[in-house]
């Protein structure tokens, strides 16, 4: 589990009793956000009719996220585009930087994903109450349910709503952690089986790397699209 260890880089920064030191996790957060900023800044700097590679990358990502939002949450979600775009890119770059050997995966820590998910949860709930007032509570009362079942359904709906941040954060964190742990386990097998038997786990490790890159993209996408779906619930109350 050494790959998930967080350690201090540089001096210890303490505000009161709280330790806010710069760690390897912080370093990779800075690297990821800087990479996002640099790539998209380069991609938006020059406007040529026929885009160059980096501009194409930026514009394709832009249209990809924009289409995702308008497909799941409709046109009302336009003002939240830049937040969801940043969220998707941040998670994606953190996941992808985690795939580099000896790098630290920011999203493999539950506290990071939970803070993101909790922020989304509170944000969406506040947006829902602002848009619909107390009518937002109708979200917990699905239409067309028999009256007898209603108390049970409402309880389940409330629990499911409250478990959203947990499921959102745990999904991302568990996927990243499980993938990296698995690669580490297979890597350990390569060492312990030596030159004779080590080839099979090595092959698995290589295949897993490909799979993990896919998972890294997929989990970022799922994170963003679930945010869009929650936002859709808040913006367009269907019950």
């Amino acid at each position: 589990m050494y790959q998930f260890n967080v350690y201090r880089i540089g001096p210890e920064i303490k505000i009161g009793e709280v330790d806010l030191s710069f760690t390897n996790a912080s370093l990779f957060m800075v690297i990821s956000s800087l990479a996002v900023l640099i790539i998209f800044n380069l991609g938006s700097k020059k406007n040529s009719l026929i885009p160059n590679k980096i501009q194409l990358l930026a514009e394709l990502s832009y249209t990809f996220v924009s289409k995702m939002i308008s497909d799941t949450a409709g046109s009302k979600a336009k003002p939240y585009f830049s937040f969801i775009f940043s969220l998707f890119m941040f998670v994606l770059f953190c996941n992808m930087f985690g795939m580099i050997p000896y790098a630290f995966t920011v999203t493999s820590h539950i506290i990071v994903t939970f803070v993101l998910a909790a922020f989304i949860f509170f944000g969406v709930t506040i947006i829902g109450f602002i848009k619909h007032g107390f009518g937002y509570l109708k979200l917990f009362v699905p239409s067309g349910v028999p009256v007898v079942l209603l108390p049970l359904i409402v309880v389940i709906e409330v629990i499911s709503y409250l478990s959203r941040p947990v499921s959102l954060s745990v999904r991302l964190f568990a996927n990243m952690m499980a993938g990296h742990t698995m690669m580490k386990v297979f890597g350990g097998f390569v060492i312990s089986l030596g030159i004779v038997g080590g080839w099979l786990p090595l092959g698995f490790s290589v295949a897993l790397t490909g799979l993990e890159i896919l998972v890294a993209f997929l989990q970022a996408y799922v994170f963003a699209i679930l945010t869009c779906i929650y936002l859709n619930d808040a913006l367009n109350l269907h019950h």
Partner: protein
Amino acid sequence: MFLRFSQTLLIYFLLFSYVESAESGGMPQLNPEFWFSQIFWLIITFGIMFILLSKFVLPKISENLELRKAQISENIEAAEKQREESDKKLKEYDQLIINSKNEAKNYFNKAREKILKDVDKKRESLEKEIDEEIDKVEKEILDLKNKSPEKIRKIAVETSSDLIKQIIGVEVNNSSISAIVEDVSRKTN
């Protein structure tokens, strides 16, 4: 929904069993030592990235996309217009060619008719002249023909009377000679 809920519960269960089993080694994720540090730095990095992206980068990208869209549709419009114009020009050109062809044909026809007429006229006048000439000549010939026997007779009579005079020395009556000449010429005929 039930499925998602049970899935969440399952993940919880797995997580807690993980925690219990790894408590001695310690899962780094559940060590709260650096939690606040991580939260703090997450807010700072993500916040700065979000602000810079939403203030400067994303509007520029969106503007670029809009501009490209506008430019492309403008170009398409201009191309459409030019195509229509060239179609019109092509039609005009075709019309012009057809017109000039017709005109040329007209000129040609007119010229041919005129030439034909001229030729006809000239031939007619020529024929007339020739006919007249022939008529005249024929008349002359006929005249000559009609006149010749009398002259011959006269000459014959004269010469015979002269001959007789020189040979015999006798003056012969002209009328008797002419009667003889007539007789002879009838016999020879």
